[in-house]
């Protein structure tokens, strides 16, 4: 189901280097290992959410209080965040999110397709800068660059993690 191949550890080390201290998430299979790593690290506060927009508000508060955070979600969750993201645009609050994509590469579930196809455009429309990673190498570079853009240049930045990196969900297990 998940052919992630060690990139979660690499992303986690980037997050540590950037002194990310709050990791908010609504689970996705593609983020499962990274979520485990965040929970296991005493320096990181891993915050499970009931809906993704909570993560936008939470991390705005974190930054106002002097801590950096990251929001981990899948593309369906982006749609839950739009009005809350408007706050980041108005206040120019730094924000980093890593979005695992659904509804694009060999998707089995047709209900995932509309939101997956709209994800990138919606994020741009609400003022979030969008990076995309199709390979593990691109992903490391993208997360590192996005972190700097977010927290050094005070911008809202999303890294979209291509569905082909996560692999097909096995619907017949």
């Amino acid at each position, binding site marked *: 189901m998940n052919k992630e191949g060690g990139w979660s550890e690499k992303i986690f080390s980037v997050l540590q280097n950037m002194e990310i*201290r*709050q990791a908010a998430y609504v689970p996705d299979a593609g983020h499962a290992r990274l979520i485990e790593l965040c929970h296991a690290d005493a320096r990181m*506060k891993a*915050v*499970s*959410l*009931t*809906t993704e*927009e*909570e993560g*936008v*508000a*939470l*991390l*705005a*508060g*974190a*930054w*106002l*209080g*002097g*801590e950096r*955070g990251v929001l981990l979600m899948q593309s369906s969750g982006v749609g839950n965040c739009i*009005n*809350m993201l*408007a*706050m980041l645009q*108005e*206040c*120019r*609050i730094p924000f980093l999110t890593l979005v695992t994509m659904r509804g694009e590469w060999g998707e089995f579930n047709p209900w995932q397709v509309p939101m997956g196809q709209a994800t990138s455009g919606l994020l741009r429309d609400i003022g979030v800068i969008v990076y995309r990673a199709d390979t593990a190498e691109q992903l490391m570079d993208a997360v590192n660059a996005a972190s700097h853009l977010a927290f050094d240049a005070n911008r809202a930045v999303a890294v979209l993690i291509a569905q082909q990196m996560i692999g097909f969900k096995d619907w017949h297990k």
Partner: protein
Amino acid sequence: MTQQNEIILDRREAVARILEDRGDALLITGLGSTTWDAAAVGDHPHNFYLWGAMGGAAVLGLGVALAQPHRRVLVITGDGEMLMGLGGLATIAVQRPANLGIVVIDNESYGETGMQKTHTHHGVDLAGLAAAAGFSASRTIYSRDELEETVSVLYAASGPVLAVVKVKATLAPTVLPPRDGPYLRDRFRGAVLGDRAAG
């Protein structure tokens, strides 16, 4: 309805009483009337007013509380704003921030849009929801005596705590605090973080 549950409190008086004891607590207000209430008490660099982001006040307060575990964080928001972010009560309860207090100024109405009734008018119990989620303490306040008993809980009890203050559904004069996002952000960060704010 028992006499105890008659709604007699005035929102401006209640918020003024709560903020009288704020000390160096950090304050987040939800959009609309509770932002005007805080502004009527007096603008303060430890205040961060939401002029939008409806449903986000309590969880934004959680983010501040986790980042500043040695400072008290108070959220004052309205019943409509809190109802939009009910899931946040569960998220906050699971995190158990000892330094977070939440006040819901509950006039059972959407005050900015024509006083339409909210769910609390029809019996939805926000203090009960917080208790069911696992808050350390929560209660609904109808009287000045109950408010007096609760102010110290908001600032000193091990959180998260939530108080619903039932207030009359009367519109108070709109008092506008600063609203420019970058200004509010820089002022709050400067007051909380000092020299670290620019980084």
